[in-house]
């Protein structure tokens, strides 16, 4: 406490700033005011514009992304990315660390708004509606594009409240019975129901890592989104928990469009229909998953999937 007020405070003075600033800067105003720059005229088109190998389009696209760029300050972290995600399709995003996978999927539900320095440009559309425009309602957008994070992050509430959180926010249930049903259905689809049905009132943080991650998935699908984004959902889990989540993804793919970031090539091969390979902020190659893994067209992709690199 800074305060040994006392002096911790010098005070304020006690204490002026004994506490280091939170690691990622707090959102300036992620929801309402941080308006992404729809255009950055001062940034001349990158001379090193490149061609993504493979077919970036999907037949029944839910998400379409054209010429997406992300800058963190002066760092051009994502460069001219084009990619579609189709209905009932799982797209895996792979690539070496720091290549911009997380950056890319965070664009898709505007989570980059929470980072002060981040600026996103390009044409990102959900069912033809602009994601990245000033007018877009992020609350609505995030209700439609859910997200599961790398580290399980259940709220410090009961299991029930964790799942009920989203539906409550959005007013999806008009009475307790409906809410119960949503919670039940979501937990069931997340494959967690049988494990927690007797302790819905226990703290969500008391579950095991794998259970927590499935709880987070349940929490996401409780809002009934159209797209689910997953950023390395299994990286903190053991193989058994991972297998469960992978089964779950298979299941979910029947209803949702899914974009999943993963470091595991096997996982990408198991769960996805299409795979996109990123490298240093560029989308190098996109294709059917088996094609990417068995017969990649680009040298970099080949190096990566054969484990020579990354």
């Amino acid at each position: 406490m800074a305060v040994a007020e006392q002096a911790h405070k010098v005070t304020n003075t006690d204490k002026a700033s004994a506490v280091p600033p939170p690691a990622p800067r707090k959102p300036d105003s992620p929801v309402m005011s941080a308006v992404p720059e729809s255009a950055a005229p001062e940034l001349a088109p990158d001379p090193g514009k490149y061609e993504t190998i493979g077919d970036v389009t999907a037949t029944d696209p839910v998400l379409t992304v054209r010429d997406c760029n992300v800058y963190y300050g002066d760092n051009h972290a994502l460069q001219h990315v084009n990619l579609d995600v189709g209905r009932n399709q799982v797209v895996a995003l792979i690539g070496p660390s720091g290549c911009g996978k997380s950056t890319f999927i965070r664009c898709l539900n505007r989570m980059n708004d929470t980072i002060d320095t981040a600026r996103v440009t390009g044409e990102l559309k959900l069912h033809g509606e602009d994601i990245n425009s000033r007018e877009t309602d992020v609350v609505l957008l995030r209700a439609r594009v859910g997200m599961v994070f790398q580290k399980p992050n259940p709220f410090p509430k009961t299991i029930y409240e964790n799942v009920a959180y989203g539906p409550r926010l959005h007013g999806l249930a008009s009475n307790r019975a409906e809410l119960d049903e949503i919670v039940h259905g979501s937990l069931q689809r997340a494959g967690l129901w049988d494990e927690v049905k007797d302790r819905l009132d226990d703290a969500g943080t008391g579950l095991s890592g794998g259970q927590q991650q499935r709880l987070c998935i349940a929490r996401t699908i409780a809002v009934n989104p159209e797209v689910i984004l997953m950023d390395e959902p299994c990286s903190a889990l053991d193989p058994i928990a991972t297998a469960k989540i992978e089964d779950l993804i298979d299941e979910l793919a029947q209803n949702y469009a899914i974009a999943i970031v993963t470091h595991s090539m096997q996982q990408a091969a198991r769960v996805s229909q299409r795979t996109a390979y990123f490298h240093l902020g560029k989308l190098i190659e996109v294709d059917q998953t088996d094609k990417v893994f068995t017969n990649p067209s680009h040298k970099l992709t080949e190096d990566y999937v054969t484990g020579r690199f990354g």
Partner: protein
Amino acid sequence: MSDQPDMNEFSARSPDTLERVRVGLAARYRRERRFRMYGLMSTCLGLLFVLFLFVSIISNGYTAFWQTQVRLEIDFDAQLIDPDGTGDAKIIGSANFDKLVRTAVGQLFPEVTDRRGRRSLNRLMSAGAGFELREMTLADPALIGTRQTLWLPADDEVDMLIKGYIDRDVPEGSRRIKDQQILWVDALIADERIERQFNTDFFRLGDSREPELAGIGGAIKGSFFMLVVTIALSFPLGVAAAVYLEEFAPKNRWVDVLEVNINNLAAVPSIVFGLLGLAVFINFFGLPRSAPLVGGLVLTLMTLPTIIIASRAAIKSVPPSVRQAALGVGASQMQTVFHHVIPLAMPGMLTGAIIGMARALGESAPLLMIGMIAFIVEVPGTPLEPSTALPVQIYLWADSPERAFVERTSAAIMVLLAFLLVMNGAAIWMRKRFERRW
């Protein structure tokens, strides 16, 4: 409810979900705006308080830095000061200098002859005018027998009138200064005999019942002695304790108790330290009441936890690699600490010490307990003489009814705040200057 979600549910329910979300949006955004508004209002309220506090104090006090002076022709009458021409300081010192002032004022208004009129005329000048003449004469006996034009302090009521704090339209009965006196003052103004000059006495003198003679010199000196005692004791003790706890202490129950104790002590009300000082230093050890030494001891105990906590933080921030490097070349643990850790942690420890001192400077409650609220006119010469302290002086003056004391209280607060600002500024500067990222 065991039915599996069917394939079409997504497409079937999705529009419904969207619709429901959309319906609630407006209200949610309203709540969002309202919440944000509360936050903004609270912050503004806080800022407003700061502004209000400062405006109220500065507007009440800034005039105290000027004092109304009257230009008089003083006749240093040898007959009156030193009739036998001895030049003896004792004789000069006991002369009636007030009479010189009275004579000089009387000469300005020769038409006033009756006793009451003369008396109320004399009341235009401060009792300090005579003092000043005495000091001048003692310093330079050659003045005796000469005639000098001097600026001498006016009475506090005149001062208030000149500064515009007295409403001339108020009926005469409800103000201290009478209509006749106001006429005289106006005459003096017309004669260009009245001027506002920088109030050096305010910084020089000790306390007084007369506002125009009351200064913060004694209080500043008392506070200074106290801070010297406090820093001289609490800094070495605090650093030593922090060094022990961080570098040498074993991890056992006793040290846990020590730690909890220090943290708690930092939050004990300051008045309790005053009780301790009264019971232990004054009643038990028989140290003199009202002495800055005792005040310093009490403030030492009060600031010690603060300094220990800050010093520990500073020591903690020295990376272990430095210690390992020193130990690696064969230094003993003590040498490592004294040659490397303490010098590296010094800026942080000093910052903590300054902040602790700033807190000690503003503290008054414990000083009331040990009798530092006596009415003391002399400026103390040593830490053992009775004295008061700046914040206590403020407390004492705050009770006085005269308008002139309101002004002085606010001015004393401004001086105190200026000291604190400088100290905290120094701490911040030091932190910035020596901040080190390992």
